[in-house]
């Protein structure tokens, strides 16, 4: 009676294609790696010489930012951090709403980016830039 039947055959894993596998992995990671980590907020500028398009007043909400970094939404003062929730509510009522952002000449860019960020957070797709107020 044979219990342990020892096999004398060579049971090696073929390693000839190992380098192919490694190259496939290497190329896969080369292609999928993205080196740039820089990101930004997207916005589409109005085309040059755009004629005034008539928009019903109820579809526009005015957002003004002064040089001190204070925001005025439809005539009411608002904290910048609260813009997104307010705009979100307004968008629920009227999905055609256009946010018209107006800044002062001396408003800091960082404040403006914070406001645009808030609008992006509220998923406002229609953002309009108004000319800065001249003194």
């Amino acid at each position, binding site marked *: 009676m044979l219990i342990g039947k020892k096999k004398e055959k060579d049971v090696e894993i073929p390693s*000839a294609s190992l*380098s192919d596998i490694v*190259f496939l992995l290497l190329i896969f990671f080369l292609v999928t790696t*993205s*080196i*740039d980590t*820089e*990101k*930004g*907020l*997207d*916005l*589409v*500028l*109005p*085309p*040059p010489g755009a004629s005034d398009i008539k928009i019903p007043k109820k579809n526009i909400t005015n957002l003004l*930012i002064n040089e001190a970094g204070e925001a005025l939404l439809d005539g009411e003062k608002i904290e910048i951090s609260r813009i997104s929730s307010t705009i979100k509510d307004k968008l629920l009522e009227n999905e055609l709403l256009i946010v018209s952002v107006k*800044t*002062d*000449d*001396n*408003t*800091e*860019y*960082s404040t*403006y*980016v*914070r406001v*645009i*960020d808030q609008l*992006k*957070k509220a998923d406002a797709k229609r953002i309009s*830039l108004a*000319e*800065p107020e001249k003194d």
Partner: protein
Amino acid sequence: MEFKKKSKINVAIPTASMPDIIFMLLIFFMVATVFKQYAGLKVQLPDAEKIQKIPGSKRHVVTVWANTSEQVVCDDVRLKKLSDLRNVVYQKLLANPQIKIALKIDKADKMGFVSKIHEELRKANALSIYYFALPGG
């Protein structure tokens, strides 16, 4: 009569050194590749939360830097006047109609200056812009 004398010798090309050759090639191309990188200007970017990557290839991105002393650099061109921006961008747009503008503007800049840049880009018909920002906010 026998015509063909079949050789029984294995005539395989030796492939043992193939990885070495490929690594040599790989290292050569790694060393020879130059990443397109512009020096630009030193700016302090603002913070934002809802930032996103610019979709598509980096090839289609034109970067515009603007610092607090109102210097403007577009890719590798240092502009003497802000009004030159429209020409530079317009030429780039003609060469590649699908470019997007990446704006790297210092966070301490004033909006009056930023909207002048907006005006120039509008005149060049480069309308798709990205305000670069750092994650955070």
